[in-house]
């Protein structure tokens, strides 16, 4: 006798099966494997924080075979890393076109070498717009998940009940919950990594701190200027007070980061300053953020 409950159960299992055809286990660190999603026939996307070596990375495919993979590049800011296989391995993930809303049921589909495909069930607990991660990257949406993540779960495919992929699960972007890196962000980062080998991030090379200019105005004062950096080259000095950037008033370092992101590497951004009490406008060419890893 098929009850509603067993129908639901079967649907979930089918969704897992469907999605599982594009989920791999990734072996790129000593103790635990992690998960990855075949985003294109020969390209795997996984969680950057689980890649702890550059070489001898292998993946376990849905058919059980283990293959070597090369690291094409990574973006710690969004916690994404891209692995390439020597040839098309399996069918890539089917993207979801469902609009995610808090309360929607989702599954995180992973794979481990021993037990094959695995699944955990939960819901979308919160959704909001563009979100800057603490590592300096930007997700198109903040999608918080209410589901269990295990040590080997990061990189798992987050799917809707039909088995289509909404994003990549990671435990590293928030202390309180698992976050799904949205598919749109994955696409954006993937393209940039495959063409450039990395994701470039805008940078001015200044250390800033909020100061009260008057009772009603908070601006940012320049504490340090990186020698030969974009701001230094444009003539920004320690003690300058930054009032607006790219036409937008800035009261907090968040505002500055947003303005830099809106502009882009190589573009010129106008900075309105107060120097010794006198207004001054300086044009800064946004540079590329130096990577330290």
């Amino acid at each position, binding site marked *: 006798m098929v009850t509603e409950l067993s129908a639901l159960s079967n649907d979930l299992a089918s969704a897992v099966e469907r999605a599982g055809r594009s989920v791999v286990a990734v072996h790129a660190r000593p103790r635990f494997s992690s998960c990855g999603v075949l985003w294109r026939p020969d390209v795997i996307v996984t969680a*950057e*924080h689980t890649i*702890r070596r550059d070489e001898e990375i292998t993946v376990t495919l849905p058919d059980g075979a283990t293959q070597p993979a090369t690291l094409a590049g990574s973006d*710690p*800011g969004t*916690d994404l890393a891209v692995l390439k296989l020597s040839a098309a391995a399996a069918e890539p993930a089917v993207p979801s076109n469902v609009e995610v809303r808090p309360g929607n049921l989702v599954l995180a589909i992973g794979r481990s070498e021993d037990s094959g495909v695995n699944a955990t069930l939960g819901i979308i607990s919160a959704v909001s717009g563009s979100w800057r991660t*603490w*590592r*300096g990257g930007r997700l198109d949406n903040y999608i918080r998940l209410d589901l269990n993540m295990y040590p080997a779960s990061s990189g798992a495919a987050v799917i809707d009940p039909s088995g289509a992929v909404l994003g990549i699960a990671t435990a*590293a972007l*928030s*202390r309180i919950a698992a976050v799904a890196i949205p598919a749109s962000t994955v696409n954006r980062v993937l393209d940039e990594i495959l063409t450039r080998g990395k994701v470039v991030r805008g*940078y*001015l*090379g*200044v*250390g*800033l*701190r*909020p100061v009260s200019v008057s009772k009603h105005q908070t601006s940012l004062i320049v*504490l*340090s200027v*990186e020698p030969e*950096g974009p701001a230094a080259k444009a003539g920004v000095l320690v003690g300058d007070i930054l009032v607006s950037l790219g036409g937008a008033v800035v009261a*907090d*370092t968040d505002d*500055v*980061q947003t303005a*830099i992101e809106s502009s882009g590497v190589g573009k010129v951004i106008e900075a309105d300053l107060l120097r010794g009490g006198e207004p001054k406008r300086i044009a800064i060419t946004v540079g590329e953020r130096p*990577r*330290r*890893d």
Partner: protein
Amino acid sequence: MIRLLIAAPSAVVRAGLEALAASNPAIELAGSFADLSSVEALRPDVILAALPLEDLAPPADGLAPPIVLLPGESQPAWTRDMLRLGVRALLSGNASAAEVLAAVEAAANGLAVLDPSTLDALLPSASPLSADSPVLTPRELEVLRMMAEGAANKTIAWKLNISEHTAKFHVASILGKLNAASRAEAVAIGIRKGLILI
């Protein structure tokens, strides 16, 4: 559903707290009394009490439901005895409705709630010598900047040619100096203090 018991000698205060409880659909009022005598019989999830400290006594069977305490005239400070009696939230006399409800929910979930003024008294007093800008060593600054890019301890150790143990030590020192509870918080603070360039 949080089963709440209200205990306050003043009828006016009781009425006010009852209205407060009624405003939150997640709260079910188990009863409203002048004292705590009905606690044992009713077994509420949380007690919202506007009672003097002396009137709090542990129940006979030793199981104390969490108490959200609204103090009377004097503002008592946290003591170990209060914790033993089950007090999990000590709100100030001018706590808002939202704060009281939040404290009830938190207590029901096993958390303790401290009013900021109490927290102030419990935290180590700021030495007048401590500068507003914490001083990180040049090495710590380097580590902080790597943390801002999500570098793990192992990566930091490898890049700076130090042991992973030393890297962990630097990270811990940075979190301490910046008064941060996590790497993410340390990075956010670092950017706002101009320690991390953007």
